């Protein structure tokens, strides 16, 4: 047992999980009685965001912050540890969730059903924040399962044959992925005798490299499925377009990013030797994901399915940063996650508004929307250009960092000689930008530019006349993407700080209360 009491600042680490969790519980308990469940949920989310911002500032100024539950000494108790990576992503998650909640504010659901759905959103946020801030691998598994059960509920809400079909595919593949993650944890415990991340960093050095390599592969497969990296991405285009656009945006913005975060955390910080061992495999997976994502988007007519494929292409950028694993590469991957959380969510939200306008999900049956909604066409083109990574946009900066990293590692003039995998990744990153631009421009011209096809309108989706909240939330999110692209300093700084923290685990280990070891 620790003698000293927990310092007040350390409570900041756990508050981003507790606030939405209790908020969700209150919503369930008060379902039907609460007059304004949406306002309450937005308030809880914004409060979480404020705590995240304070935590991030604390971490950027004073280094990682940790708290161990039950005041058991660190390797035994469950640790929560926030560094720039976790705190930054948690802040973004709260921001994105708040926008999505405002987006669905004008919905026509009964208050009780609405409160239950909002409770699931808050529990999802709690799970995502828990994943970002935990310092214990088994605890990370528990947060993964919490995210999974909340997302099941959100996906299947309404229970139409389409959503049931999508949830079966999403559920089965993600369940298998978390089970494999659990198997990897069992093996880590068997090999090292600990599941505390900071403790594993120390213990992994003296373990049998063959066993650790096997564990690394298992982790990469499990978390790669969670992140939807090719060839483990099949569940994503089968499910994300099925629920309402707000839920699509929330899942698209948050879930795969938790998988990407866990990959960064485990293969760069916790088990760096296994990350290096997987370098060729990660480079090939990253390159293939970069190319096949936008190609899928080109081949798809369903608007939100196409956005899902663009999301997958972006995951390729993150895996590329993971494979390059030098400071610029990891900073690029971190900045890309920030970019994708904002941009992909916004794109799903715009797609939802377009579907409501056109009365169809199918981009082939939309058309001529430029006349009726010039604002949406502007938002859509800004987001498409951001995902493709055109220069003044937010998507350009991570691509620049990744290209720098790839060219640096791949240059023939270097002492080690050019790394062929880095050269491959540089090529794939550039091709990805071209293909994404092609896919986005095709969608834009189909939906907005060409004349409307004759039998317009589909009885499945009722066009909503005015949706001030939804349009407002989407505009705010897109403006944020635009401003962040023009003024990328703080986000690049966050990326560099996160990369430095991942590559040099000293501060993280000391914050948890372990080391320096003799």
């Amino acid at each position, binding site marked *: 047992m620790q003698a000293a009491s927990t310092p007040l600042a350390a409570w900041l680490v756990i508050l981003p999980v507790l606030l939405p969790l209790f908020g969700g519980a209150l919503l369930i308990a008060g379902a039907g009685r609460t007059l304004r469940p949406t306002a309450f949920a937005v308030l809880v989310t914004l409060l979480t965001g404020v705590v995240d911002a304070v935590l991030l500032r604390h971490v950027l100024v004073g280094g990682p912050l940790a708290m161990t539950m039950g005041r058991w000494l660190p390797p035994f108790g469950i640790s929560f540890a926030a560094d720039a990576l976790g705190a930054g992503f948690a802040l973004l998650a709260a921001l994105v969730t708040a926008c999505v909640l405002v987006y669905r504010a004008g919905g026509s659901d009964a208050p009780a059903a609405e409160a239950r759905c909002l409770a699931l959103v808050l529990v999802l946020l709690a799970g995502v924040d828990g994943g970002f801030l935990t310092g214990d691998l088994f605890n990370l598994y528990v947060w993964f399962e919490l995210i999974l059960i909340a997302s099941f509920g959100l996906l299947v809400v309404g229970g139409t044959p389409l959503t*049931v079909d999508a949830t079966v595919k999403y559920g089965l593949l993600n369940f298998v992925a978390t089970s494999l993650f659990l198997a990897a944890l069992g093996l880590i415990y068997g090999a090292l005798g600990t599941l505390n991340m900071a403790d594993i960093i120390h213990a992994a050095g003296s373990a049998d490299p063959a066993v650790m390599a096997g564990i690394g592969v298992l982790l990469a497969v499990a978390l790669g499925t969670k992140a939807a990296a090719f060839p483990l991405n099949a569940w994503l*285009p089968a499910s994300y377009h099925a629920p309402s656009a707000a839920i699509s945006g929330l899942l698209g913005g948050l879930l795969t990013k938790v998988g990407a975060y866990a990959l960064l955390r485990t293969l760069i910080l916790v088990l760096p030797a296994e990350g290096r061992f997987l370098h060729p495999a990660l480079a090939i997976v990253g390159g293939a994901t970069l190319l096949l994502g936008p190609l899928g988007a080109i081949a798809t007519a369903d608007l939100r399915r196409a956005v899902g494929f663009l999301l997958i292409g972006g995951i390729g950028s993150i895996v590329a940063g993971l494979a390059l694993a030098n400071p610029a590469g990891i900073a690029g991957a971190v900045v890309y996650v920030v970019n994708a959380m904002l941009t992909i969510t916004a794109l799903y939200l715009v797609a939802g508004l377009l579907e409501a306008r056109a009365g169809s999900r199918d981009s082939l049956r939309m058309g001529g929307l430029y006349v009726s909604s010039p604002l949406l066409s502007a938002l859509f083109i800004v987001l498409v250009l951001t995902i493709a990574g055109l220069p003044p946009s937010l998507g350009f900066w991570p691509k620049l960092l990744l290209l720098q990293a790839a060219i640096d590692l791949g240059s023939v003039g270097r002492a080690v000689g050019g790394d062929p995998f880095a050269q491959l990744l540089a090529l794939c990153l550039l091709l990805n930008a071209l293909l994404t631009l092609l896919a986005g421009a095709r969608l834009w011209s189909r939906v907005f530019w060409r004349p409307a096809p004759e039998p317009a309108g589909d009885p499945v989706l009722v066009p909503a006349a005015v949706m001030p909240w939804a349009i407002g939330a989407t505009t705010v999110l897109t403006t944020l993407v635009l401003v962040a692209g023009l003024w990328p300093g703080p986000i690049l700084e966050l990326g560099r700080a996160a990369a430095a923290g991942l590559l040099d685990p000293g501060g993280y280990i000391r914050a948890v209360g372990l080391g320096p070891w003799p």
Partner: protein
Amino acid sequence: MNVAFALLAGAFLAAAIFLLLSRSLVRVLLGLVVLGNAINLLILVAGRLSSVTPPILGAPAAAHGVANPLPQALILTAIVIGFGLVTFMIVLVWRALGASGIDDSDAMRLAEPDLPPTAPADY
């Protein structure tokens, strides 16, 4: 005993993978259940089977010669979570089968319609 349990965990895992690769959703569900048990066994073996003495210490006693309690705690957590998720999946698959009436995952194409490729004709 560790070797026997390790082999058993491997056999469970093989059975789970065989079932998970089936096109029938009911078999896939059974595969999920077996997979969960395979991994629980794996965690138990990873913690080393050393003793059958329960790790409940009354007075401050020497803590050697008792079973390792940590894998048991991990497995208990995993069982509880797995139970919840499997229950949900069973209801979900039941609904999905009720809607289509065919127990064949290849025939489930509502979310991924098998459309012919469209020509990039008119913009």
